[in-house]
């Protein structure tokens, strides 16, 4: 049997997504948060690839490429922000950044 049930691929991406979400919600270190975000992004990219490979399409890879670009840009900006934050607050605790509240 040379076929994989599509559910298995999607389930994997769902699991990775959920793990990434846990990371985002739990960690206070902003670098970890950013990494968890990357996990989530990656999981969604995986879902695209899985879905596209069901039909043998190339569009899934195009979408993945887009996500990749997005992730790269996001990481660049995010890390720049982290550096700036560390300069200002001398910490990478995300809870410190809670001044913008109603």
């Amino acid at each position, binding site marked *: *049997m*040379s*076929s*994989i*049930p*599509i*559910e*298995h*691929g*999607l*389930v*994997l991406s*769902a*699991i*990775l997504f*959920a*793990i990434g*979400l*846990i*990371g*985002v*919600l*739990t*960690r206070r*270190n902003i*670098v*970890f948060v*950013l*990494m968890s975000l*990357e*996990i989530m992004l990656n999981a969604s990219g*995986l879902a695209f*690839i899985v879905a*596209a*490979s*069901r039909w*043998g399409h*190339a569009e899934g*890879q*195009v979408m*993945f*490429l*887009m996500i*990749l*670009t*997005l*992730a*790269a*840009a*996001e*990481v*660049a*900006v995010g*890390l*720049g922000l982290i*550096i*700036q934050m560390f*300069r200002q607050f001398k910490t*990478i*605790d995300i809870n410190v950044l809670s001044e913008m509240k109603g």
Partner: protein
Amino acid sequence: MIVLFYIAAVVAVIATIAVILQTNIVHALLYMVVSLLAIAVIFYVLGAPFAAVLEAIVYAGAIMVLFLFVIMMLNLGQHTRNEEKSWLTPRGWIGPSILSGILLAQLLSVMADLDQDIIPKQVGVMEVSALLFGPYVLAVELASILLLAGLVAAYHLAKPK
């Protein structure tokens, strides 16, 4: 090949869990690289070699190195582990885990009745490129502008006063 998929999947899940549980940030980063490489393997198995290569080069190579640079710049390492440990209380895991569990359950229930199989078929660089520079050329251009904007923003933000 199919066995490879399941092995890579298990590796990816374990490595990812390890990422979020780690207190040592450099270790976490290494687990992350492992996870990404595992996913690259999965891509390959699913017939997306171009994506697999990019995953390895851009994600595992470039982005993770970027993280590493930042960690080095901020001089995070062993001495922040204690701080990290004190932030990670067991109670803090409960809420997110329950929420994510529900989300996962929902996603699984949505996928439950998909009864279709993937027969992996190689979709090479050529097809992808034909699409990229055909119908999606505008998206590519926009993506390049996004990257440019990201570059400028990152430079601007990280610039010392």
